[in-house]
Structure formats: structure tokens, C-alpha cells
């Protein structure tokens, strides 16, 4: 689906470095806050993990828009699936061996795996995408934080035993997998086109992140019913706020937003 116009380097109002810092630091703070606050005050505060995941999702979506504007030949979705595929392996590995440093180890492992796949893609398979190496590493890291963040919000902890009991053994990891993948790939895919704008794309990332948060809220009801309430309510609030923002951007950027009407006339088009 290379219907996005000619490959080019996209304009970004917010530079990539800021996005990396936002995703990495915001994501890790969220994950740790979700873990420790749940430890102290119960799983009712686990939603911080989902907030961390939203930071990572926004970062991942921004990376997708940078790399996919070059046209990677296989469509936008595949790179999101790759990110989450690496993310699952790296996240579980980090949490299994790292204990309290788990999330950090997971991110490092994911970055290395992503770099290797990017290198193989560009050097061995000659994909010829200039930022493939760093972008794959970034996407893998973002996917990893997303998975750890949502899982923490679902389980109230990121200790591997807690994650296995509350997220993996009952299969909810599947929803973490796919909701994370879609949240990373959907914002750019939904806004693909020559007049794509960073702020509009990223507002969709917030919306998709809020859906992941609501889902985390539904699942954490299995741990304790009351703890579902804050996650779902905050998720809905983020959804509403981000949607209002997005609608504003759409009205700003669209050729015109009309209630109904005929197609533009010949004179209008020329």
C-alpha cells in the first residue's frame, strides 16, 4: 500500500531527540510508578503503567512516521508487528532476569535486537532506507515499554511471576500484543498522505494509547474490581481530550469539513 506519495524526509515540529526522551523517560517513569505505587497502595494505582505505555506509543508512532515516509515496501503494518514481536521477547526476557531493573534491561535488549534487524535489513537485504537501523531500534524499544507498561497496568506489578499469573497464563498478553502493535502503527497509517502533520498524527497516538489504557482497566478488574475504575475513567478522559484536539487539527488541515454535499466541481479541482 504505497499510496502515500513520493518518499521524502518528513518535517517534524518536535525533533526526534525530544520524542525519544519523552518516550523513554516518560515510559520508564510510568512503568516504575505503576509498579511501586501499586506495591504501596494497591493495584488501584497501577494505571500509571498505562500512562507510561502511552508515552512509549507516542514515541513509537513518531518513529513509524519517520521511517515509513521513506516507503519500506511492505506497508506500515508490518513494522508495527515487528516492533511488538521483538517487544514481547525482550520485555519478558528483561523482566525474567532483571528483577527490579527488568524494564531497563528489556529496553536495552530490545534496542540491540532492533539495531541488528535494522542492520540486516539495510546491509544484507539492501532495503536502502536511510534511517532503518536507528528507527528499528527505536520502534523495538518503544514496543517493549508499551508491552511492559500495559502489562504492569493489568497486573499491578512488573515482577515476572505477577505478569505470568495475571497477564500471560490467561492469554491477555494477546490483547497487549495487538493493541500495542496497532497503537504504534495506526496513527501514521490513519494519517498517511502528502499533507500529513506531526501534531495530528501524534494526537491519534494519544487516542490509541487511551484505548489501550481502558483495556488495561478492564483486565485489572480481574485483580481487584475497584482498581478498574481509575484506569477506565482516566482512559476515557484522555480519549475525549485527545479526540477534541484531533478534531481541531482535522478542521485546521482538511480541504474542507462539510456536513454533506456533492463532489468538488471541475473548476474547484483545477
Amino acid at each position: 500500500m504505497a499510496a502515500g506519495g513520493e518518499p521524502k524526509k518528513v518535517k517534524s515540529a518536535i525533533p526526534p531527540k525530544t520524542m525519544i526522551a519523552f518516550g523513554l523517560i516518560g515510559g520508564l517513569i510510568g512503568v516504575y510508578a505503576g509498579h511501586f505505587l501499586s506495591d504501596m497502595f494497591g493495584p488501584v494505582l497501577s494505571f500509571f503503567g498505562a500512562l507510561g505505555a502511552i508515552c512509549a506509543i507516542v514515541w513509537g508512532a513518531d518513529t513509524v512516521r519517520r521511517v515509513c515516509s521513506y516507503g519500506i515496501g511492505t506497508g506500515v503494518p508490518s513494522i508495527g508487528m515487528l516492533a511488538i514481536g521483538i517487544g514481547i521477547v525482550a520485555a519478558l526476557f528483561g523482566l525474567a532476569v532483571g528483577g527490579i531493573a527488568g524494564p531497563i534491561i528489556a529496553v536495552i535488549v530490545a534496542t540491540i535486537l532492533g539495531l541488528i534487524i535494522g542492520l540486516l535489513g539495510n546491509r544484507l537485504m539492501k532495503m536502502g532506507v536511510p534511517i532503518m537501523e536507528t528507527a528499528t531500534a527505536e520502534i523495538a524499544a518503544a514496543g517493549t515499554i508499551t508491552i511492559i507498561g500495559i502489562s504492569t497496568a493489568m497486573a499491578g506489578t512488573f515482577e515476572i511471576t505477577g505478569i505470568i499469573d495475571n497477564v500471560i497464563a490467561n492469554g491477555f498478553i494477546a490483547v497487549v500484543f495487538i493493541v500495542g502493535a496497532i497503537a504504534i502503527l495506526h496513527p501514521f497509517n490513519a494519517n498517511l498522505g502528502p499533507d500529513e502533520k506531526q501534531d495530528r498524527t501524534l494526537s491519534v497516538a494519544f487516542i490509541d494509547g487511551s484505548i489501550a489504557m481502558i483495556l488495561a482497566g478492564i483486565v485489572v478488574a480481574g485483580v481487584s474490581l475497584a482498581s478498574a475504575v481509575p484506569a477506565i475513567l482516566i482512559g476515557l478522559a484522555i480519549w475525549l481530550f485527545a479526540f477534541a484536539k484531533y478534531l481541531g487539527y482535522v478542521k485546521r488541515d482538511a480541504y474542507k469539513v462539510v456536513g454533506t454535499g456533492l463532489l468538488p466541481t471541475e473548476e474547484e479541482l483545477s
Partner: protein
Amino acid sequence: MIDYVGLMADNLLYLLLIVVGGLLVAIGVHFVPVGGAPAAMGQATGVGTGTVQLAAGAGLTGLVTAAAVMRVADDMLLVIASGMVGAMIMIGSTMLVGNFMYIYGVGVTPASGKVKYDPITKDRQDLYLSQGTEGHGVPTSCYISGIIGGGLGGLGGAMVYFALLSVTNATTALNVIGLASILAVAIFFINAVIASYNIGGTTEGFIDPKFKRVPKAIVASIVVTFLSAIMSIIIIGGI
């Protein structure tokens, strides 16, 4: 602290099986005739969808069959054969009904744009291309290629699942099934995307010139699956 060396030594066979399984997935994707967006418009030969997605659909269907068999039998050959058959049935039904679409819905004959004669049926192909297209539908060679590809995908996915489930561990069966299944899915997707990068998203199967790029995907797949396999074994063996 986990004894990593001991864990690896105990599970060396399974490590090997995971790498082979991942490799089979990557090779299998090269066989699946997928034409991407143009194929959905009858402009290119193959199934009108994405490589990763069709391979995933077939391979995961195989995984479901393999898991059902593995519940009652622990013979590895049987499990992976079941995975292969499940995936073959899925991709076979899909391509057959896909051809229904091209023949009865669009009114075209399945034909390949990459070869003049179908290597299996010896049928002339180039005369059956409608104007301005590079082929349409799934001719017999592509169909058989797709069956092989789907089968390899199911075989590989089931092999990874079997190996992960057999890793020595100290936890309940339910936990291991959860971990093994999602890690198998993850390793499947990683390999499918790598293979898809290698062929640039579309192929006609083994009759396509792009098929010669397989060795590159093999190298990439071995490197990445090997790393993933070590980590997966540590995850399952460590808990």
C-alpha cells in the same frame, strides 16, 4: 540466580529446534504467492493481501491445530505434522476461494506475468494476461508454491511451540502454555516480517525471480531467531 550455562546445555536440542522453526517460517514466506494491493485489483499474480498477514493467518491456524494435538500426544513429528496440515488447509481454502473470485467475480483466468509457461502444468501464461496487468489469480504453480509456503510456516510455528513447551521448567503447565504460545507468535511475526522485507512485500512463489534472495533471509533469520531463542529459553527455564 539462574544457571544460564546449565539451562542452555539442558535445552540445546530445543534451542536448535527453535532456530530451525524460525528459519522454516522465513523460508515459507518466500513461497507464499502474494501480490499485495495490485493483486486485489487483478493487476498482479497472487493473493491480494500482504505477505506477513497471509503467512501469519496460515501459520497461526497451524499453531492452533498443533496445540490441540500436543495436548494429547507428545510425539514431536506428529505435532509439527499437524501444524503443517492445519496451515496447508487454511492457505489452500483461501487460495481456492480467491480463485473463485478471480474466475467468477472478475471474469479472468489465473495467469502469471513472471513466466511464459507454468512450470508444473506447462500451460501458456502470457496470452492469458489481460491488458495493462502483470497477471491475476493463482495459477497452479503459484498454488502449489503457496501450499508449500503455508505448510512450512505451520511446520515452523509448531516446531517453535513444541520446543518452547518442552524446555525444562519449574512452573505449572498453564503458565508454560501461555508463555510458549505468545513467544511462538512473536518469533513467527519477527521472521515473517524479515522475510517480507527481503522480497519487498510481493512475490509469486518459487517461480518468481525474487526467490533467489532466499539465502539472505536465511542468514538474517538464523541470527535473529538464535538470539530470540536464547532469551525465550531463559524466560521459560528461569521461572
